[in-house]
């Protein structure tokens, strides 16, 4: 919209004969600034000049001392960093081409990734193995600002789903490369990883297992239930309100509610106990997540099937398709984008909720979060939180691409 405004104004002015004056005069300053860029710049400047870039702690539990960009890096690196990040901020704030903005955004993120890796060797004496260095508010603010610049540029480029998937793969490869090179090994979060490496992958696998397992169960039960609700108004009138109520139960309470009945079941039935069903652990976590997943799957199936045009369904029936043929060849394929949207909601939501399942012994990355909170070790909390966010982010991008691909052939 914004881009067309000057053109429109010009067209309106032409007949009145003042075209010349309005075209030669320089546009006002605000017309040359990018609105998202202003926000990016404000956040980046606050992060660079008023917040510490890294925190140095004598050991992993004691709160530490903030270091500015200049304090945490060798003089040359600090100078290069400040210069390049300042240029990036200027590019962001001016109205520039989307491709340039994308390159500057990605470049700045890579620069930040390189700079933070240099800090430990600069500020910690080589013989001190207790001191910990972590990224501080300034780093996170700048990372946030330039991530915003990058995503805004991607949105402006209107990249197709396949291009976005390629970018996701590129980001994953870049992160894997930096981790593999050992450049970040001096950072506190990776020191926490080093002591927990085996457990990290075990809990990660558990995390994904819980999120995907509950999703699979919700699709297996929810899809047929949604189809039945679409066909039967009475069933719909009962099912959706019940699922709505389940959705409003806070997750902590839900996990708590599972403990008593499942504990009793395990006590009474040796079969259940031998299957690993107990009041705490994986079973209640899986059941709670499954219950949360049902509403989005069922509701979106009902809405998706309801949106299929009446004439299309009637044509299918009029040409002699059976109920099953109609459902699988016409109704479900046409409802697929909406159903996938429900699955996207469930997956992203579950990846977050699994974290809390650690409270009842369900496992997952939440284990590190709660362990870290218990020990007041911030970096251990991050070891659980950062991969969780990365997983949710990846799931969202993957499913958004799938939804868009499935939408292509829909009118």
């Amino acid at each position: 919209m914004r881009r067309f405004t000057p053109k429109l104004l010009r067209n309106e002015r032409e007949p009145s004969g003042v075209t010349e004056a309005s075209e030669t005069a320089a546009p006002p300053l605000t017309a040359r600034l990018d609105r998202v860029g202003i926000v990016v710049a404000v956040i980046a400047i606050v992060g660079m000049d008023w917040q510490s870039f890294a925190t140095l702690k004598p050991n992993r539990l004691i709160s530490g001392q903030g270091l500015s960009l200049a304090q945490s890096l060798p003089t040359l690196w600090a100078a290069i960093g400040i210069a390049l990040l300042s240029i990036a901020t200027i590019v962001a704030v001016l109205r520039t081409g989307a491709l340039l903005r994308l390159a500057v955004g990605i470049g700045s993120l890579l620069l930040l990734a390189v700079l933070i890796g240099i800090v430990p060797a600069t500020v910690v004496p080589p013989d001190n193995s207790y001191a910990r260095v972590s990224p501080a508010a300034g780093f996170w603010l700048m990372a946030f600002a330039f991530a915003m610049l990058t995503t805004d540029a991607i949105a402006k480029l209107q990249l197709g789903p396949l291009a976005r998937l390629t970018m996701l793969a590129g980001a994953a490869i870049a992160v894997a490369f930096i981790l593999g090179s050992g450049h970040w090994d001096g950072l506190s979060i990776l020191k926490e990883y080093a002591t927990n490496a085996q457990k990290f992958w075990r809990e990660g696998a558990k995390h994904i297992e819980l999120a995907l397992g509950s999703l699979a169960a919700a699709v297996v039960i929810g899809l047929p239930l949604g189809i039945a609700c679409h066909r039967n108004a009475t069933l719909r009138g009962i099912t959706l309100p019940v699922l709505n109520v389940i959705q409003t139960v806070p997750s902590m309470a839900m996990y708590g509610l599972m403990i008593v009945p499942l504990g009793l079941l395990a006590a009474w039935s040796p079969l259940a106990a031998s299957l690993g069903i107990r009041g705490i652990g994986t079973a209640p976590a899986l059941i709670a997540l499954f219950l949360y997943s049902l509403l989005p799957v069922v509701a979106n199936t009902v809405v998706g099937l309801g949106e299929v045009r009446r004439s299309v369904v009637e044509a299918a029936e009029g040409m002699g398709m059976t109920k099953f043929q109609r459902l699988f060849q016409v109704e479900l394929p046409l409802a697929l984008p909406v159903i996938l949207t429900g699955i996207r909601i469930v997956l992203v939501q579950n990846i977050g909720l699994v974290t809390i399942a650690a409270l009842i012994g369900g496992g997952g990355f939440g284990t590190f979060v709660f362990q870290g909170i218990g020990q007041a070790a911030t970096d251990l909390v991050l070891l659980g939180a950062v991969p969780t966010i990365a997983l949710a982010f990846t799931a969202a991008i993957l499913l958004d691409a799938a939804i868009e691909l499935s939408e292509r052939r829909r009118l």
Partner: protein
Amino acid sequence: MIELEHVSRRFGDQLAVDDVSFSVERGTITVIVGTSGSGKSTTLRMINRLIEPSAGTIRIDGKDTASVSGEELRRGIGYVIQGNGLFPHWTVARNIATVPTLLGWDSSRIAKRVDELLTLFSMKPEEFANKFPHQLSGGEQQRVGVARALAAEPGLLLMDEPFGALDPIIRAKAQEDLLAVQQRLGITVVLVTHDMEEAIHLGDRIAVMDGGRLLQYAPPAEILARPAHGFVEKLVNGADRPFRLLSLAPVSSIVEPGTAEGPPIAATATLRDALSELLWHQRDALPVASADGTLVGRISLAALRAHAGVPA
């Protein structure tokens, strides 16, 4: 031949179709006309059992439609609805192939049939076969809808307001296409519309329905000349009644021997066209020419007048 015998349909305590009987000759076009709520669509849908009759019998070629399953019955009957109902996620070719696929035709036979039908509706197969419905114009979508209904070579085609969503020019073209295809394939067509003009133009016979009852079932000329008392009269008694009547017959039907001055009129033109020419050229008679241009006689204003109405 389709025979409806004392067919009724009840929805709850409302009688949507009330004791309707009529029969449709093989190879003809029958138009059911009526306002919304007249029961015309319900009647049509009972023929392919999208709606089951509450009472009465429907026979196609002597066979009771209730003796086969609904799906099997429908696969043998073409069906076209308003807004065409094309499957938006399938290509034109796959849309047309719907019923042959359901019937289990082999793929080479299906491909051949799709090409044949696209060509019949003057759409180049290589250009249109792989397009999706949303890439077509309204008129093209409508043609694909009819092609899809004809794919499995049905002897009977049911059409529910097939031209309702088209603008007037495309609509006229679609009507001509239908007449041409019907004549070429010799199929039986039952078409539902609310538009009397369309009914008169397309129908060999017209069934007028109101309030679930069949009020009159007759050829268009008879409906115009001797409308049943009441609703049918109101429906056809407009200012252009004589012109409608004239549009039903060709010039050759009242050509008289003799000659006349002025530009000749084609023997195949309608009487309405002839009247228009006579009025425009300010003459009482004009010569009539056959297709090869030879003069075969003349047409007079007096003869047209005798044909354009009934004496009061």
